């Protein structure tokens, strides 16, 4: 098969499951809207208008997409190494907490050029630590990272809950005091039209993380080793890759990326850490990475899609329950996960039969 044909096969493999999933979600959405006695067309219009129809909606979508990009990248980075990081939820919360603690400790006179990077590094370090633990247990003892990350979510959230409620909260609340330094400016400070929306310049960190993630995975030796371990660990080991080390490093990077997502809420939006701010964004990262096919640029696009659904739910909540879009999000995950192996099989079978018929033709040509 020629390389262009191979490339187009790959593109189809990547895009087709998402298209199938969105088609299914649209039908399911229609049915759910009808079950509430509303007109699907009107609800969909409302959803689009409430998200991409005005600057506030766009700002909210960008804000949500920022966190989702980080958790999506986190899942993908582990996924490329053949690991499942189901712990982005806890890593996200821990990252936000790390950012808040640094922001509380720094003197308020510290200029933003210093304070913001320190807080961001703190968020990523704490996230990395939470990610590294399951990485280490997997590398050293072969403990299933799926189970360890799930269990660690509960442990981390309970621990943070205890620290905040017992040591660090404002009276009558479940949040820390306002941070002294490290606030990331809102988009609205520069572009007045976004006024009122939570969108902030953490957005740039998320995009930078996607670009850096792409560079690391596809342009560095270490990233190549990581992908090699994900594709075929035995072969990678035979090729001289230290597999346990790669497993550990990929989980630490993964945790750091999820931790970066915490910056968006803590430094960019509220200016403090609050109990439960992660709110499922860690789990949605799985959806983002899945639809983005574990590719950093695919993830940017998928994050926008799921952020639109999430914000769109709020836009239509007056007419149909906002959980409509949560159901659709889950339906997209389920159908993409289900369609991927099937689409791969079908496309490969089709490609193989085309190749076979081409081969037959060329031998016939030789014969004649």
């Amino acid at each position, binding site marked *: 098969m020629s390389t262009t044909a191979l490339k187009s096969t790959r593109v189809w493999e990547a895009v087709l499951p998402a298209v199938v999933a969105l088609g299914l979600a649209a039908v399911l959405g229609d049915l759910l809207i009808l079950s509430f006695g509303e007109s699907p067309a009107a609800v969909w219009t409302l959803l689009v208008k409430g998200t991409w129809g005005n600057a506030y909606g766009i700002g909210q979508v960008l804000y949500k997409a920022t966190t989702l990009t980080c958790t999506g990248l986190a899942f993908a980075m582990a996924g490329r190494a053949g690991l499942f990081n189901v712990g982005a939820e806890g890593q996200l919360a821990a990252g936000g907490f790390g950012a808040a603690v640094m922001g509380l400790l720094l003197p308020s006179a510290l200029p933003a050029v210093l304070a913001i990077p320190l807080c961001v590094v703190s968020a990523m370090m704490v996230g990395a630590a939470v990610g590294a633990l399951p990485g280490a247990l997997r590398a050293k*003892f072969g403990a299933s990272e799926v*189970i360890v990350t799930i*269990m660690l979510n509960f*442990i981390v959230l309970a621990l943070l809950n205890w620290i905040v409620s017992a040591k660090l909260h404002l009276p009558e609340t479940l949040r820390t005091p306002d941070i002294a330094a490290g606030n990331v400016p809102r988009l609205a400070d520069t572009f007045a039209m976004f006024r009122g929306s939570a969108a902030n310049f953490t957005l740039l960190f998320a995009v930078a993380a996607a670009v850096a993630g792409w560079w690391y995975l596809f342009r560095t030796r270490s990233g190549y080793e990581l992908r090699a371990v994900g594709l075929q660990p035995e072969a990678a080991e035979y090729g001289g890759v230290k597999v346990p080390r790669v497993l550990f490093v990929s989980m630490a990077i993964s945790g750091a990326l999820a931790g970066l997502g915490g910056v968006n809420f803590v430094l960019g939006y509220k200016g403090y850490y609050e109990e439960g701010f992660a709110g499922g964004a860690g789990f949605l990262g799985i959806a983002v990475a899945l639809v983005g096919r574990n590719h950093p640029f695919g993830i940017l696009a998928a994050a926008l899609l799921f952020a639109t659904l999430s914000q769109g739910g709020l836009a239509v909540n007056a007419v149909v*329950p906002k959980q409509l879009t*949560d*159901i659709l999000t889950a339906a997209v995950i*389920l159908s993409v*996960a289900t369609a991927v192996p099937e689409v791969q099989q079908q496309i490969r079978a089709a490609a193989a039969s085309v190749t076979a018929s081409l081969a037959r033709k060329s031998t016939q040509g030789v014969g004649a």
Partner: protein
Amino acid sequence: MILLAFILQTLRIAVPYLLAAAGGVMSERVGIIALGLEGLMLSGAFGAALGSYYGNSPWAGLLGALVAGGLITSLLAVSTIRFRANQVVVGVAINLIVAASTRYFLRLVFDSSSNSPRVPGFGGEGIGNAMFASFLNPVVWIGLAALPALGWVLYRTPFGLRVRAVGEKPEAAATLGVAVNPMRLKGLYIAGALASLGGAYLALDQHQFTDGMTAGRGFIALAAVIFGRWEPVRVGVACLLFAGAETLQIQLQGAQLVPSQFVEMIPYVLTIVALAGVVGRSVAPAALGKTD
């Protein structure tokens, strides 16, 4: 008397864990990762409230739970067995889909964003001692019997032998004429039924469905499955242990010896320790997660 109260309360708290964990053992023993237990339980709880409300009887509630759990199990089965989708992703998706759709239908059916109206449960109101009253609930007895019965089935019946074969070495089972996927399907439906009964217990015990009422119990059951090394009796002991810690926590609330958050962590910490193999390593069924 205090000890008796402690034991009774522990058993009551343990019932949903025992049922869901029995489902978890069954599912993982046929090779399907039981990440969807939480969603299956929640669907069972909602189905139970729905059935009990419209049928005006807790038995209709149990039927409702089995139907709702069966629907969700079908989704799980089609994607993991027929289409060989990744089980971790499907498990997460199942939990999200049930959490969202129970909220959606709560608003559609009961026009509420938090809870259903009061539904009939299994009696006991007329009996003076509330502590014993809950033992009139047949689900309690099903829960207590589930894991020992599962242990007997797995190790003493031909069906159980096939289940174990499919989960350990599906190729070998297939060679001996065991139809692997139909076995997985049966195992998954049994698992779904057990987990949804666990959810039904919660809804019928509290006489209503409340949003997100399983509150992570499916994951505690999963922790018990792993901590109990996929052996039904050990898993049952793990459930009782976790429930006992919770009871202790509730009864000592006034004393504040240990912050409640640390008690909450116990099942998860123990599971991680068991997986890391500090004392006797937990080893999963060999074919767990591999459906291709």
